């Protein structure tokens, strides 16, 4: 019976129009990943955040899975109730637990069946696998790379170790958003902890240097350094391991900077499109699935996403000290910047929601517990909501 109920759920959820709808969603998400993976986090001055296309892609697909699960659960529950399916169950020798397990199994199966091809399409569209993923911003390579004070020639490999830092020099006008590809090597006899601990020095040609020591993070991933500054003069980024347990193997292209900041208007339009897109996707889901609840849920879904984005913006802005410093006080463009900040946070909401590992890696001593809590909290709420919906779906076997 459980198998029959699960297969029936898959049939109801995936047959017909949803296939085409999922294809459209996959294309939109792929373009989203492709376009936003390098859009900077505004307002987090001096913060160092990890990020990579793979992570963005994975978290986007994860979020889609959660969203799909909730929507599908809601639709399935609605379908079962509205169609009188429970009446048919009530006069047959099938228990509530069997129905609940069967429907949940079907929901998970349908989610997997829907998201595996969807994830593949997203990855394809997002350009995963390309060496340099297209971004809104231009990649700028360092003019000079030094390891341990000696220049690194093109094609040569250098080893950055404690006491032998890597120095990447960039030409004037290059925005200091950098991506560092890491290939750690473990020296013989060293007890590698499994984490990469670095110190990063930002050394402008003119002005004071600044140093960050991000929390240790896993190797084999890209480190994205966001500075939100566009120095007129040139600058250098100096990367040095904080312990002796590993060295970093680098070449001249290990560190690339992202030049040509996306104009505010572009970011604004992009974020606005995303807001509209979220509402459109929700409305389209409701329409194509024939949800008999008018436009209510679709509107609520879009409003929910926007509210979460605003909440995230508020939390991060407070943590980053914006507002408290009074830097924006009296600035006529403060509201515009607030709107931009909110919408930019919306852009970043998707990967953040799904990030279970410590989220924003600020400099050491600048942990961001609120952001760390946000993702699991939202995930928990969504999970509880989905279970609740299914419980509601299963309970009214009989009218009382």
């Amino acid at each position, binding site marked *: *019976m459980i198998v029959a*109920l699960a297969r029936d759920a898959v*049939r*109801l959820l995936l047959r017909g129009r949803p296939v085409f709808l999922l294809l459209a969603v996959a294309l939109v998400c792929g373009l989203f990943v492709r376009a936003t993976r390098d859009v900077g986090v505004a307002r987090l001055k001096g913060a160092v955040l990890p990020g990579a296309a793979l992570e963005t892609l994975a978290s986007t697909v994860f979020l889609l899975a959660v969203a799909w699960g909730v929507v599908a659960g809601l639709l399935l529950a609605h379908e079962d109730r509205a*169609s*009188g399916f429970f009446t048919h169950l*009530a*006069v047959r*020798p*099938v228990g509530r637990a069997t129905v609940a397990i069967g429907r949940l199994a079907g929901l998970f199966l349908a989610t997997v069946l829907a998201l595996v091809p969807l994830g593949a399409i997203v990855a394809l569209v997002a350009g995963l696998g390309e060496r340099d993923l297209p971004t809104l911003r231009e990649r700028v390579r360092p003019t000079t790379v030094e390891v341990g004070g000696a220049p690194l020639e093109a094609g040569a490999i250098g080893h950055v170790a404690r006491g032998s830092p890597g120095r990447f020099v960039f030409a004037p006008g290059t925005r200091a958003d950098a991506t560092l590809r890491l290939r750690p090597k473990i020296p013989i006899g060293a007890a590698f902890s499994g984490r990469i601990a670095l110190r990063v020095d930002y050394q402008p040609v003119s002005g004071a240097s600044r140093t960050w020591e991000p929390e240790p993070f896993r190797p084999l991933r890209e480190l994205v350094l966001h500075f939100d500054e566009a120095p007129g003069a040139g600058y250098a980024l100096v990367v040095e391991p904080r312990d002796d347990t590993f060295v970093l193997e680098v070449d001249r292209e290990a560190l690339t900077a992202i030049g040509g900041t996306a104009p505010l208007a572009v970011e604004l339009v992009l974020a606005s499109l995303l807001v509209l897109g979220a509402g459109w996707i929700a409305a389209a889901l409701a329409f194509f699935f024939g949800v008999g609840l008018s436009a209510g849920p679709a509107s609520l879904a879009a409003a929910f996403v926007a509210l979460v984005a605003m909440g995230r913006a508020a939390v991060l802005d407070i943590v980053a000290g914006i507002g408290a410093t009074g830097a924006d006080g009296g600035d006529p463009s403060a509201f515009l910047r607030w709107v931009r900040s909110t919408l930019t946070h919306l852009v970043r909401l998707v990967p953040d929601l799904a990030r279970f590992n410590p989220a924003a890696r600020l400099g050491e001593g600048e942990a961001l517990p609120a952001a760390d809590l946000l993702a699991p909290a939202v995930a928990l709420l969504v999970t509880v909501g989905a279970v609740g919906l299914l419980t509601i779906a299963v309970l009214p076997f009989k009218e009382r």
Partner: protein
Amino acid sequence: MSRRAGGADSGGADGYDSGMDGAPPIEAEGLGKVWSGPLGSRRVEALADFSLRVAPGSVHGMVGPNGSGKTTAIRCLLGLLRPTRGTARLFGRPPAAALAVGYAPERFDLAGKRTGRETLRLLGRLSGLEGRALDDAVARELDRLALAASADRPIGGYSKGMVRRLSIAAALLADPRLLVLDEPFDGLDPIGNQAVRDEVEARAADGVAVLLSTHALADLEAVATHLTIVHAGRVLAQGTADEVLGVRGRCELVVEGLSDDGLAAVRAAVAGAGGRTVETRPARESLVDLFRRRVGRGEEGTE
């Protein structure tokens, strides 16, 4: 058509509880149902002092105007609604999901994405059928209800009559010992009506107890052995069809081959025996019979 062996003495499909031996399929005493608004406001008495007993092999028809409480009574009898007063027992036990009941509700809105065959397979599986038994039962009911040619089309494309027949097929699937049909003739053409009537009569002949609620009085009259007339939630009349419909001191005489003189002689004979001829009219074929004869029994495509 091959009917499943066992009939009234079988325990129904696997998974179905046969109930207590010898207990009537339906036995209800003093059922009442009151709908209340918030905080007890707007009390509506949908059913009052409703009693019913349905025996194996009988076809019990329930008639009444819209909103008279027929569907409420059925839902209370099946345990889908908790009655405010009274008790209902199926096969001697409180209504429970595991009893051998085939129920075709008034509304059958199962998703249009499923085909007819998929719907029957799902409901058959949930009734405890599996493997070859499930395949045979689905094929049998699709054939009996003239749905075989449409079996692999989504229900969304079915006509109202086809959906009604599918609903009845789903109720019959597991060979229940009690069949409860709510408005089974709604939306059916005369051929469909006849198919359902044939099925009801055949099941009853096998010992299955049938409870029918319908506004199709002519169809009901043709198959019902017992009748209950419900109005405003109360039973107005109840008994065998002859008891409820019979007119004391009257009978009908159907003759053929008589000339006018012969008819006059019959009238005179009736008068001579102390009776009175109330009405004499020429016999004619019913529209239903004409429809069946001319259109025939064919498989329904689309309507």
